[in-house]
C-alpha cells in the first residue's frame, strides 16, 4: 500500500511537470509521514485517509514546487504558434501564391496545443482528427478519392481504442471497425456486399477467443466455420441462401449453451451501454442511409464522428474541450465543402484552444 501510494504521488507530480529534486524531496517526506503513521498504530487505509488522495495532495502542493523549464518552453511554442502560422501563411501566399492550400499551416495551432499541452495518450487521440482530415483532403484533392477515402476517419476511434484499451482487449474492440472497413472495401471495389457481410462474424469469433474453456472455444470456432462453409456452399451451389442461413443456428446454440452470449444481458443491465449501442447502430444506419440514399459518401462520414463524441458524453464528463476536435472537424469540412469556403473554414480549428482555455480557466 505504501509503495502504491508513493508511486501514485510520484506519477501525479511528474504529470504536473515538477522538478525531479522537488519530487524526491516530497516523496521522502511522505515516506516518513507514512512510516510514522504506521508506527503510531494506524492501518494502511487510515494512513491513506490521513495523507489524502495523491491527486489532491499534488494539487495542494503545486504552489510549492518548481516546474520544469521544458513546460515553459512548450507553453511558449504553443502561445507563439498563431503568429508563426500567420507569417508562414503570408510568406506562402505572397511569394508562391499558395493561399490555398497554404491555409493548412493554421492546423499547426491546434496540433501544437494538443501535442504540447496534453498527456501523450490524450495527445495521440486528439491529433487523429487532424491527421485524418489532412489525409482525407490529400486523397480527395490529389487523387479524387473522396470515396472511399473517408475510410481514414475510422482511424479516429481505432487509435482511441488502441491507446486506451488494455492490450488483450484490443482485438475484440477493434473488430467492429475492421469488419466495417473490409465490408465496405468488398462492397465498393468488388460489389460483394453479399455475402461480404459475413466478415462481421469475425466480431463474435474474436470475442469467443476470450472464453475461458478452451475446448468450448474450439467447438464454437469450428461451428462458425462449418456454418459459414454451409451457407456459402448452399448459396452458391443451389442459390438458396436462406436455406444456407439455417447453419448459423449451430454456433448460436453453442454460444447459448456455453454461456458465451452474455453481452446482451450486460447491455440490458447497463443503461449507459444500452444507450451507446443504440446510438452506434443508429449512427451507422444514418451513415449508410446518407451514403446510399443521397450518394453523400463525400460528406456522410462526418456522422461517424458522432460515435466517439457519444462515447465521451455517455462515459466521461461532458467537457467541450474533449468534443471540440470533432466539432471543429465537422465545422471545417461542412463549411468548406458545402459553401466552398475552405480558405475560411479552417478558422473552426481555433475553437479548440479557445474552448480549452475558457473551460479550464
Amino acid at each position, binding site marked *: 500500500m505504501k509503495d502504491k501510494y508513493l508511486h501514485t504521488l510520484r506519477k501525479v507530480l511528474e504529470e504536473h511537470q515538477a522538478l525531479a529534486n522537488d519530487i524526491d524531496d516530497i516523496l521522502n517526506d511522505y515516506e516518513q509521514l507514512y512510516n510514522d503513521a504506521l508506527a503510531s498504530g494506524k492501518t494502511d487505509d487510515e494512513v491513506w485517509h490521513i495523507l*489524502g488522495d495523491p491527486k489532491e495532495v499534488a494539487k495542494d502542493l503545486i504552489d510549492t514546487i518548481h516546474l520544469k523549464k521544458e513546460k515553459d518552453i512548450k507553453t511558449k511554442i504553443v502561445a507563439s504558434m498563431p503568429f508563426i502560422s500567420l507569417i508562414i501563411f503570408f510568406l506562402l501566399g505572397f511569394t508562391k501564391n499558395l493561399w490555398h492550400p497554404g491555409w493548412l499551416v493554421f492546423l499547426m495551432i491546434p496540433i501544437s496545443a494538443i501535442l504540447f499541452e496534453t498527456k501523450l495518450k490524450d495527445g495521440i487521440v486528439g491529433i487523429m482528427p487532424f491527421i485524418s482530415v489532412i489525409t482525407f483532403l490529400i486523397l480527395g484533392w490529389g487523387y479524387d478519392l473522396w470515396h472511399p477515402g473517408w475510410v481514414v476517419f475510422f482511424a479516429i476511434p481505432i487509435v482511441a481504442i488502441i491507446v486506451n484499451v488494455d492490450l488483450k482487449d484490443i482485438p475484440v474492440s477493434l473488430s467492429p471497425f475492421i469488419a466495417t472497413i473490409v465490408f465496405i472495401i468488398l462492397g465498393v471495389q468488388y460489389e460483394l456486399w453479399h455475402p461480404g457481410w459475413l466478415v462481421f462474424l469475425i466480431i463474435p469469433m474474436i470475442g469467443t477467443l476470450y472464453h475461458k474453456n478452451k475446448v468450448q472455444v474450439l467447438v464454437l470456432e469450428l461451428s462458425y466455420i462449418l456454418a459459414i462453409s454451409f451457407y456459402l456452399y448452399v448459396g452458391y451451389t443451389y442459390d438458396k441462401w436462406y436455406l444456407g442461413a439455417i447453419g448459423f443456428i449451430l454456433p448460436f446454440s453453442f454460444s447459448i449453451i456455453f454461456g458465451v452470449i452474455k453481452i446482451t444481458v450486460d447491455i440490458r443491465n447497463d443503461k449507459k451501454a444500452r444507450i451507446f449501442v443504440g446510438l452506434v447502430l443508429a449512427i451507422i444506419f444514418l451513415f449508410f442511409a446518407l451514403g446510399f440514399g443521397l450518394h453523400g459518401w463525400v460528406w456522410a462520414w462526418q456522422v461517424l464522428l458522432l460515435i466517439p463524441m457519444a462515447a465521451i458524453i455517455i462515459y466521461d464528463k461532458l467537457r467541450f474541450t474533449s468534443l471540440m476536435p470533432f466539432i471543429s472537424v465537422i465545422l471545417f469540412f461542412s463549411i468548406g465543402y458545402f459553401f466552398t469556403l475552405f480558405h475560411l473554414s479552417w478558422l473552426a480549428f481555433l475553437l479548440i484552444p479557445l474552448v480549452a482555455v475558457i473551460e479550464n480557466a
Partner: protein
Amino acid sequence: MNTQFKKGIVEMCILSLISRKDMYGFEVIDTLAKAIDVNENTVYPILRRLTAQGFFETYVEQTNIGAPRKYYRMTDFGRKKLNQYETEWRSFLEGVLKILGGNYEG
C-alpha cells in the same frame, strides 16, 4: 466553515506549535488532529509552503524506526510573523466575540 478561512487558522496553529518546540511532520499532524477538527491531509502542504516562505528551517535527525526524520524549526522571521498574526487574530477574535455576545456599539 469556509475552507480558506479554516486553512488560515490551521496555518497559525502550525506556526504556534512549532514556535514552542521543533517537530516532525507526523507529530504536527497528530497533535493538531487531537486538538481540533482538521483535514489532516492539508497539513503537509502548509508545512512545505511555510518552509519555502522562510518561516521554518529543517534538519534531519536519526530515529530508532529506521530512516532519518525531518524536523521543522521556527526561524526568527517566522517568530516575528507569528507575533504579528497573533496580535491581528486576537484583536479580530475579540471583536467577533463582542458582536456574538451583543456587546458592541451600534
